[in-house]
């Protein structure tokens, strides 16, 4: 049987190769790698809300909960430079990067407390960057009602003149160098 087995291949049975390589996409263009959806991409149509399964919470509700210290954890999903410049006061930073595997953030995400409401927000119009982080938190086992996305993101927070922090805010108030 052995010679026939080899002959099977020699006579031309095509081997499927690991087709994982056949659809290899181009490496990301630099602008794609660094831009935030809300900054460079056109906003989605008014009626479309990405990730509709992700629950939203209003800025007004978050602000009310934030006054009750410790009840809510805010997570800014912008890159660290943008976070340092301006973020919601008290927020921590876990940057959303669509170009890396979501689970590469798991060590950071799973360090967030499991017994508090966690609210992700982005500097984008329809939670394009914060909503995927909520989904990843669900994958990590966090309760669905304990993780939400801030509706309207940082923009809405600013519109309501709620507290901000960061170097840009310090500079505006004359606290910078």
């Amino acid at each position, binding site marked *: 049987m052995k010679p026939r087995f080899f002959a099977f*291949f*020699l006579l031309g*049975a095509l081997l499927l190769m690991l087709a994982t390589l056949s*659809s290899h996409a181009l490496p990301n263009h630099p602008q794609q790698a660094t831009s935030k959806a809300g900054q460079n991409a056109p906003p989605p149509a008014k009626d479309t809300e990405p990730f509709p399964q992700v629950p939203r919470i209003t800025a007004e509700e978050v602000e009310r909960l934030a006054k009750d210290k410790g009840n809510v*954890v805010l997570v800014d999903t912008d890159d660290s430079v943008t976070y340092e410049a301006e973020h919601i006061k008290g927020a921590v930073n876990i940057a959303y990067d669509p170009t890396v595997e979501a689970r590469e953030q798991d060590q950071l995400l799973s360090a967030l*407390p499991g017994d508090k409401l966690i609210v992700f927000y982005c500097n984008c119009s329809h939670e394009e960057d914060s909503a995927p982080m909520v989904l990843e938190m669900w994958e*990590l086992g966090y309760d669905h009602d304990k993780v939400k996305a801030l509706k309207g993101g940082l923009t809405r927070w600013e519109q309501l003149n709620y507290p901000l922090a960061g170097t840009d805010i310090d500079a505006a108030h004359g606290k910078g160098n």
Partner: protein
Amino acid sequence: MQCKIPAIGIASSNIVQYATGYNFKYNNGMPIRYVSVPFPFTGQPRAVDVGYVSGKDMLTGQPLMTAVVHALTAPLTAEEMVSGAPPEEAVEPRLLPPDSEENLRRLFEDKEWTDFNSIILPTEKRVTAMLKGTSRKPDEVIKTINITGGARQLTVEKVAISAVMAGASPEHLPVILALATQAPFGNSTSSMANMIVISGPIRNRLKFNCGTNAMGPYNRSNAVVGRAFALMSKTAGDLRNNVNAWETLGSNLQYNSMCYGENEEALPTGWDPLHVETGFKPADNVLSVGMGWSSIASVGASQSIYPTHFLMRDYMSSFCASGSAATLVMDPTVAGLLKDVHGFKSKAQLSEWLSQNVTKTAASYWGNGVIQSTAVPFALEGLEPYASWRKLPDDALIKPFTNPKAIHVVVAGGKVQTMWFVTDFGIRRGVLIDDWA
């Protein structure tokens, strides 16, 4: 965003090859200039880091600061002025040309499309037969995997290829497709590993081993499903040794990812199976994947002088407790003792007790590299409990497993010994296998 400010990367010697390699080199649009310092540098005494600064660039041999100034000021080369999309990597054909089995095996090894155990060569006929195990279309995209410098689509057909190579049968394919949603496996310099737990009636239908030797090389289903994870992770995840897989020691667990079934039939009354604990129905067929690094085994029989959960508590104190993650795997006899003798009426009660009783010193907690890179930024940003823990004296005791829901308990084994493992594996939400039938 272009700031038009000269910038360079400084990478340690362990990783600079990766930084200057093809994929990452072009990832930011133009080749970045690097200067390299010895490894390790994080967490080292200040004098060591100062020595690096006054030492030499590992790439050029120049004094480090001279290399920094040169890299920042030397005119751009023609290669560095490249713009637009980066060069495209060669795309492999879907089908290989005919060749001898020996040559094809060599090719698969040269390309690192294997785990270097012998594979079943994935002929078109074999893959077609494998695809009969699912109603899904071969070209359906299961997920897009972001790899260094790009992305790859993991399709049903590609997973079927891995299933063939691993030695699986068509009836295994839905399980392996569910597993594919969790691919690729961990890839970190700190040498991760994974755990695959099968829950629900499918354990018996496919004869997964949940009893004696559940975690050993004694069962086909456990073996082929676990192995398929390694094969699809390496191929779809483009993981090649010293190219983009940089696990300094690696983990032997990655050959099989600890694939086993829970011994649901032997659970004490009141203890729910893993998938039920995480929100699924008992009749659901679910695959759960965990990720971690460490596993510590009990040795010998349980002794009444020091109850089992005390030993579990002690052993868990050596884990980093990142994300409060832990998974305990125990023989049914251990579960029975914990319930009947020590009063843990459910898995959740045991998890809660461990969360409240595992302690470690602040110094031990902050002395872990993963904690340094995750919890320290949170502490500096004021997030509790990290901010308060950061201010504690080194010998102060903390309770690092703050989230009992992240401490999972799985019962497996053949009631031959009061044996258990504690691991630092964090288990992600399970995947419904029936969705992939």
